[in-house]
């Protein structure tokens, strides 16, 4: 079935099986491999992207359901050579080790700051309930988001 929507500001289209997940379309059809498949049970958040301004789990959405929407992935954040403030904060505060959870963490954190520009530490930790990290123990992820909140 035909589908078309906007990804990182550019119109894209495809012909997909109904069961094609958005994450698979992004990775396999659009070669946007920054969005990751981590769990297949909708728990880990490595697949988080933004759809019409809201963070969602792209592994739990059909590509067909993105019809007519605006999708933003991790690849869509930086402006030419400069990192998005959230990306810069993760770099500055060492908010990643292996980096697998990081795109999802960043996309999720951007949504947090859109909803709540100055979150407490508890609010940050509660918001990240849908993003799992096996490497860092979350401390520097929280710090990164606190740093980004100051500059955003």
């Amino acid at each position, binding site marked *: *079935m035909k589908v078309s929507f906007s990804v990182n500001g550019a119109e894209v289209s495809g012909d997909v099986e109904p069961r094609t997940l958005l994450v698979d379309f992004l990775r396999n059809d659009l070669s946007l491999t920054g969005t990751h498949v981590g769990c297949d049970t*909708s728990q880990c958040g490595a697949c*988080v992207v933004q759809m019409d301004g809201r963070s*969602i789990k792209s592994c739990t959405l059909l590509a067909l359901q993105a019809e007519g929407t605006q999708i933003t992935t991790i690849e869509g954040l930086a402006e030419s050579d400069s990192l998005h403030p959230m990306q810069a904060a993760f770099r500055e505060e060492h908010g990643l080790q292996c980096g697998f959870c990081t795109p999802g963490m960043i996309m999720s954190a951007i949504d947090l700051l859109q909803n709540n520009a100055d979150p407490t530490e508890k609010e940050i930790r509660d918001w990240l*309930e849908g993003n799992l990290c096996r490497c860092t123990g979350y401390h520097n992820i929280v710090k990164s988001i606190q740093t980004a909140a100051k500059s955003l």
Partner: protein
Amino acid sequence: MYRFDYQAPDSIEAALAALRKNDEAKIVAGGMTLFPTMKLRLARPDVLIDINRIGSLAGIGEKDGAIVIGALTRHADVAASKLVRNRISSLADLAEAIGDPQVRNRGTIGGSVANNDPAADYPAGLVGLGATVLTDRREIAADDFFTDMFETALEDSEIITAVRLPIPKRAAYMKFPNPASRYAIVGVMVAEFPDEIRVAVTGAAPCVFRVAAMEDALGKDFTPDAIASIAVDGAEFNEDIHASAEYRAHLVNVMARRAVAALG
């Protein structure tokens, strides 16, 4: 997931027509339960009828002293609604504690209610608040709606359109969540109305239930102490790697007392 056909109708009538055409058709709203279930191959609908384009099904309003929430309203929107926070703050709390932010951005009240997961929050919310489920063809009281594990009073091809909730004098929802999934191991809604008190429990048993003994005791004395010695019988309760039936029975009393204490 196994292969399926897909339709995205833009009206309730079109959705009903699509459902009637195929026994194996299933509605998808938020998909936060259906897609994981299909990925595990525990469900295998031939056709998915995506109702997300039926805009008239979403929205929160107040009518004749009750809050009416459209079936397609996302948990995040219930949680963020000033109207809900103002009139039934326990419902906003309940919605805010479902899953995680991304699940809340897609998951819907209609989907949660139609699915009747034994560990979902809305069944306790609706029964505890004495709500009414509105469908394309009738109204069903919450007390009659949730019938068994994953089963409801809905007929084949019946679509939930909205949930109507009376405004309580006061109410609180306390949940003991699974740390990974954040589903309710036990969740208790306590609500006081002018003519009754309702105590509804999710997570403990195969289906949401009320605790009449607690409702009676709280009617005489609305304090945690009044229900401290009321034990529920956990013989038929759920038992899994997260909690034994006995522990769930214990948690029912703890969560109920916490809910009452929060209103003191």
